[in-house]
């Protein structure tokens, strides 16, 4: 499995890296040719140096670490709670009909506007960031997994019911496995949302973390730092996604694939 996994991935990964390097090269050349204003767009060279600087000063691990910690808990809480709610709504359509409109309505709220309330309830410690992150993640899981719940093959449910399966067993044996593709895509989207939530959470009060760093750099027109943070984020997120991919390969083994 793992050997196969590596076999397919590594070449694609190399291609990805090559592509990114090519883009950076063009960007750098454009900068040197004076076609790109480094004040707005920085340059790969400056960004590289900046990342090295953050690395050697140890700033990176401190800030990245805290943001990922917030995001991690946000993902867990939001994911678990969203999944649970999806199942509850799936089982109880009446509750769904009553509460879903309100929840859908809340999905569109500008979470930043909730800052003062979050601070009031959860303080300015790590809790409020985790809550912000969890809230963003929650909706993704809730909507997706609820849709997955509604998409379950009725025949399979009936089969398990006929074999004496109770509600809980039906969920475990039929609904949950059939929701796995929906769960995995929620994980993928949720990964991004959790980081975004943590960063937005840091906007409402922080003294460390990537969000704080980005905000701080943005406020002082240090575009290089902003882009350094963004590049770091992209790399980290993309690596985490390999984990989701790996899970996908492993869990969805039973699914026949196209090509």
């Amino acid at each position: 499995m793992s050997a196969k996994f590596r076999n397919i991935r590594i070449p694609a990964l190399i291609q990805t890296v090559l592509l990114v390097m090519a883009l950076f090269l063009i960007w750098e050349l454009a900068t040197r040719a004076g076609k790109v204003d480094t004040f707005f767009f920085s340059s790969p060279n400056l960004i590289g140096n900046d990342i090295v600087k953050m690395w050697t000063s140890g700033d990176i691990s401190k800030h990245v670490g805290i943001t990922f910690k917030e995001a991690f808990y946000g993902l867990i809480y939001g994911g678990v709670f969203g999944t649970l709610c999806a199942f509850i709504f799936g089982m109880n359509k009446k509750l769904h009909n009553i509460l879903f409109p309100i929840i859908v309505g809340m999905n569109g709220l500008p979470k930043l506007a909730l800052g003062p309330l979050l601070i009031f309830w959860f303080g300015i410690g790590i809790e409020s960031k985790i809550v912000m992150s969890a809230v963003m993640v929650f909706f993704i899981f809730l909507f997706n997994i609820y849709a997955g719940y509604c998409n379950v093959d009725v025949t399979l449910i009936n089969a398990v019911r006929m074999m004496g399966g109770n509600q809980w067993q039906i969920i475990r044996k039929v609904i949950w496995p059939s929701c796995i593709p929906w769960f995995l895509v929620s994980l993928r989207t949720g990964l991004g949302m959790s980081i975004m939530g943590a960063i937005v959470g840091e906007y409402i009060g922080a003294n460390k973390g990537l969000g704080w760093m980005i905000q701080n750099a943005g406020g002082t027109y240090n575009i290089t730092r902003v882009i350094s943070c963004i590049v770091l984020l992209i790399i980290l997120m993309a690596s985490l996604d390999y984990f989701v991919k790996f899970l996908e390969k492993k869990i969805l083994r039973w699914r026949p694939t196209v090509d």
Partner: protein
Amino acid sequence: SDKARTKTTSAEATKTNVHQKITITEPSRGELWAPIYLAQTLGYFKEAGLEVDFQTVTGGDPGAPVLAGEAQFGLRGIEMPLIVTQAGKEVKVLVSTSQKFPYAFIAQGPKFTTIESLKGQVVGASTPSGSPTAWIKACLSYGGLDPSTDVQLPSMQNSAYIAAMKNGNVAAVCGSNGYLVNKLMANGGVMLVDGRDTEVFKKIMGSETYEMYIMFATDKYIKENPETVQKVVTACAKGIQWVNMHSTEEIADALLPLFPDRKEELLISIADSKKHDLYSKDGKHTKTGYQAALKLGEYAGIVTQEVPEEKIYNESFLDTARKTLNNKQ
């Protein structure tokens, strides 16, 4: 847990000889609050048995943690106490760290060089209630334009000003700090009104002084923790003294722990502040400065009631601090 820790009373702290935890919020880390940051980096807080934590609150509301009791002190502009006081919350300004108006009004040259030329244009501002908008309105009125009809004043993120100027989306913006002014000028900006110039500011607002950068706390907290407040204010007063006695270079170096990787920018901003004599000498406010703040508040539409000075300021801690400091010297 966190909440409980920050709420530990000063009495307990001294008893157990453990550093008392204090949280100070800030809307951004700005060098015009330098004395307060210096109180941290130079160890004045620590000497007083305080463990201070600065929290940047950029989105949402930087005042909220203080009003909600999650933080004990807040760094803000003077307009904030004006607004919340009218809304029925009781807060007091304890220290002012700047003494002159720090903004400038800058147009994008070469097309726009005068205030009149801005007629019918878009000017990048903050939210209507924010002080940059108020300052722009004051400048426009001063230049003979009607701020409500002659220009459009969209609110913009601070960080988007230069981009918007550069690609022609706005014709002018408020230069709200030395570094930004510097950058705007470097990108083809034209100085329309330099509020940092005492003469100019006096002409527009009727005052030479303007104590914008302040630290505040709620009345409730001040009443319940007078010793802690005293310690904090004393440390800040020390910071004020230090700023006045040291060079730009020294201040920048001292601030650096709280301003990582920002040395270059600090040097520019602090030099600019020094040049325009923005740093407060004693941390106190002036009557004319307060009047100017009220006037600017009217431009922002945030002053709708009488707000007597004594509802805003409580400088008794500062006076005590200065006394002890002077005695020591």
